[in-house]
């Protein structure tokens, strides 16, 4: 059995009086590709923010590679190997594609290897190479999503957190991006994917968690979840 990369143990979080996450537990194994699906407002993005350290849990512990993340700042987590692609891409609009990518490696000092990773990112996303000197804000939505993923990969993450990468993109582009995400996973990066597009997410991942109003209600192998009657009714529109 593979070692877990990420463990959430009874984690709670809230915004003021509103409880967004109500005691969730999940385990993501090394090299696995997992997804967190659910309706809008179920607490999926909040869960990602708890893992990346932008938000602090009120209760419960998050473990990364066997180490508790309690009190670990978000910038330290980037250094430890947790990288997040935020929802809505959040490209630096006035910077060039190259500058955006270089900022992804902000916490790293190994210049030669950063250069190698840059080349690798460009082989993964050839479109970005062509647009190297173009400003991030002038890219199309799909290219911006690619840039956001490429930028997150520049920190050499062990765990890649993706928040709604299909949001607002044409089906063809989504397909392309998901293929690349699968490639990233196969090369050895553990991936946690948050998606509203449940069918797509379950198709490409190994393990799935379903979130409803701050709790995980169903979990299991993704291929079993696709067949699950409850999920078919609630999320796959049958």
């Amino acid at each position: 059995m593979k070692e877990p990369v990420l463990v959430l143990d009874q984690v709670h979080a809230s915004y003021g009086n509103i409880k967004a996450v109500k005691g969730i537990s999940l385990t993501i194994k090394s090299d696995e590709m997992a997804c967190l699906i659910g309706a809008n407002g179920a607490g999926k993005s909040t869960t990602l923010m708890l893992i990346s350290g932008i938000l602090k849990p009120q209760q419960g512990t998050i473990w990364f590679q066997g180490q508790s993340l309690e009190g670990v700042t978000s910038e330290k987590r980037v250094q430890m190997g947790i990288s997040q692609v935020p929802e809505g891409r959040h490209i630096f609009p006035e910077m060039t594609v190259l500058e955006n990518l270089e900022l992804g490696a902000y916490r790293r000092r190994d210049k030669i290897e950063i250069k190698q990773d840059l080349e690798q990112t460009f082989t993964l996303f050839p479109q970005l190479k062509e647009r190297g000197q173009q400003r991030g804000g002038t890219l199309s939505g799909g290219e911006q999503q690619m840039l956001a993923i490429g930028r997150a990969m520049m920190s050499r993450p062990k765990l890649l957190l993706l928040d709604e990468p299909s949001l607002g993109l044409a089906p063809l582009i989504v397909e392309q991006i998901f293929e690349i995400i699968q490639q990233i996973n196969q090369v050895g990066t553990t991936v946690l994917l948050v998606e509203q597009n449940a069918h797509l997410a379950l198709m490409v991942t190994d393990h799935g968690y379903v979130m409803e109003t701050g709790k995980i209600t169903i979990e299991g192998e993704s291929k079993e979840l696709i067949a699950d009657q409850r999920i078919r009714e609630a999320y796959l529109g049958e």
Partner: protein
Amino acid sequence: MISMSSILSSRSGLILFFLCLVPLATAYLDQGDYLLRICSTAYLYMLLALGLNVVTGFTGLLDLGYVGFYLIGGYTAGLLMARLGWSYWAALPVAAIHGGLWGLLRGAPTLRLTGDYFAIVTFGFSELLFRIVKNEEWLIGGPNGFVNDIPAPTLFGYELWQYWQQYYHILILLILTLLVVYRLHNSRIGRAWQAISQDEEAAQTMGINLHEYKSLAFAISAAIGAIGGAFFAQFQVNISAGVFEFWESILILCMIVLGGIGTLKGALIGAAILGSLGEVLRISLSWMRLPADSRYLIFGAILVMMMRFRPAGILRSTQKSP
């Protein structure tokens, strides 16, 4: 895109060379001292514009109370020199550090604020300071301030009170400030500021500590403002609250907007234009029997024209990148 390296290139060297010659040329003119005074004032504003640009240009936070740090620097140096008999060369760095500390203090509660909310706090801060120095009689003389009792700095036994001495004095301070800000802008720190100014959330996911980098910008910006204030205290000999009104913050802000916000050249050019224009207008308006404050009308008109015809500043740089 503006090449920042050109600041240190031979062309900049040439400009600097000519700037150093100015006092020699004006020595033969009737109005020579007046010209030197205009130049020195313009350099002072250039220094202040560089300082404000660190927060408003680099990190993208609108600071409407920059004059507060100018005031702190001026009064700190003024107090140390006039009341405690300190040498200017000791008072200057202490004023800078004092200003920087207030930059951090003002920054602490505003770290989570952006946009209008941040601007309002900065405005409140400088207004508060203004009211305090205007009404505090015992220590700093209330609205009259220090009257003719700030001594000139001395160097190797010479008192530096003549206009050509003041000219070189502020020119050197300006160049040192420019070097520091230039180096910062092109460093890792500068890139982090740039990232923060464009997207705070993304900057955070890149592993940039927002609080740390913003605080650093606040402190450096404030310290530069305070250095300007310390120079001003001995330059004017007497300083009083009236100099540090809210409009002064707006004027410095106009300078960096006029030149092109976020760029060093923009800040320098904008300040050179408005800084010298202000001094020229103050004299020429009184010739025309118009109140000196009507110069703000002209500044306003310039800004409106800028917004209409060159919204990205004289240098036309829409980039916040170097």
